[in-house]
């Protein structure tokens, strides 16, 4: 026991460390510094890009926001480029180096720990980098969010403004546009029965494109409630598991009993969450499709079929 401790201490002092250890140390040090620089670059780039993207989203008057999407795709391309750079270096300077030494050094060797420590330190640091990448990626994703309520309001306002302003091309009688039409349609003149073709504006046609996202935005709180309920299952399972580990060596019957009660309670909560999550999911879907039907009543039949399909996968 003491002997072991002494040796590992020695190795840390560098007295009996093998010569390859310096290569590991150097790689680890460089790896950390390299990721730090990449992270700084990523942060600098993302913080500069995000306000730009937001501005382009506002100013791009193309209905599909194509200029925005090109810039957005280019920004993500750079983030990817940074990520790939990290991955390539990890492969070469950590992964390959580890396996190379691992094939030469026996697991039973007293120095093998140095090698596994090298790998776990480097891969932990790598995970940290990946988390930062995910974070920035999400921040950039958010710039895609459009103010759909405002866009929807514009469509409603336009409809109010035009609904009474058309006249029959044949007899000049007033034609009332009875609702927001999503695509071209034939409207019969109430006076002379002529079939007029009504073509909605670019703005009005866009209703079909934004409807689903708008309905989802309006019911996002219900989706989150469902997600939270779904996550509870794992969470409660782990809590219960921890408790069960904590009493492995417990002898006191009273303590055992108390812990058992807590565990039973957690299990009960877990079973409830398992049953409740799909219910919340269905409630969300119903609410979302109700909202969608309100926005595009003309597509109700289709929307309901989609709802029925989704129910099958709950």
């Amino acid at each position, binding site marked *: 026991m003491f002997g072991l401790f002494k040796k590992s201490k020695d190795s840390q002092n560098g007295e009996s460390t093998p010569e390859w250890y310096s290569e590991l140390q150097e790689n680890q040090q460089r790896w950390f510094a390299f990721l730090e620089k990449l992270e700084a670059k990523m942060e*600098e780039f993302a913080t500069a890009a995000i306000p730009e993207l937001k501005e382009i989203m506002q100013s791009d008057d193309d209905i599909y926001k194509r200029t925005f999407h090109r810039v957005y795709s280019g920004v993500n391309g750079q983030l990817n480029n940074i990520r790939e750079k990290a991955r390539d270096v990890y492969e070469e300077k950590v992964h390959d180096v580890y396996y190379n030494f691992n094939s030469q050094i026996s697991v039973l060797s007293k120095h093998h720990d140095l090698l596994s420590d090298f790998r776990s330190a480097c891969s932990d640091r790598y995970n940290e980098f990946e988390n930062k990448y995910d974070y920035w990626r999400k921040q950039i994703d958010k710039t895609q969010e459009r103010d759909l309520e405002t866009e929807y309001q514009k469509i409603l306002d336009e409809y109010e403004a035009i609904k009474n302003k058309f006249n029959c091309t044949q007899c000049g009688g007033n034609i009332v546009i009875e609702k927001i039409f999503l695509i071209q349609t034939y409207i019969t003149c109430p006076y002379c029965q002529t079939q007029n*073709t009504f073509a909605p*504006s670019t703005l009005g046609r866009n209703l079909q494109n934004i409807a689903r996202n708008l309905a989802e935005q309006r019911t996002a709180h219900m989706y989150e409630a469902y997600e939270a309920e779904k996550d509870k299952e794992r969470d409660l399972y782990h809590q219960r598991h921890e408790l069960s580990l904590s009493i492995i060596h417990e002898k006191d019957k009273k303590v055992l009993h108390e812990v058992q009660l807590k565990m039973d309670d957690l299990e009960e909560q877990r079973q409830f969450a398992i049953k409740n999550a799909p219910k919340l999911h269905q409630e969300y879907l119903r609410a979302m499709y109700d909202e969608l039907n309100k926005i595009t009543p003309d597509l109700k039949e289709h929307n309901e079929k989609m709802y029925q399909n989704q129910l099958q996968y709950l």
Partner: protein
Amino acid sequence: MEEKKVNSFLNRLKENAQKQTNYGGEMEITEAKINAKDCPNCGAGRAKQDGLTHCAYCGFEFFNIKLTDGVYIKKEDNSI
């Protein structure tokens, strides 16, 4: 110096994105509009009583398909 690289990259990206042609050309922004088709055969306006596919007056065929129940156009819109 560092700051510069990031900004100049972004500027170039933006510039290039703006000057590119959109595939399929620019989307024309249009207002809502209404018009009607006169029969190319007899010149009459298209009237309701006999559906959409044929002229109510001279029977000229506006289009030669069989209408089904769609979004706004319905089976009943077939001229008899």
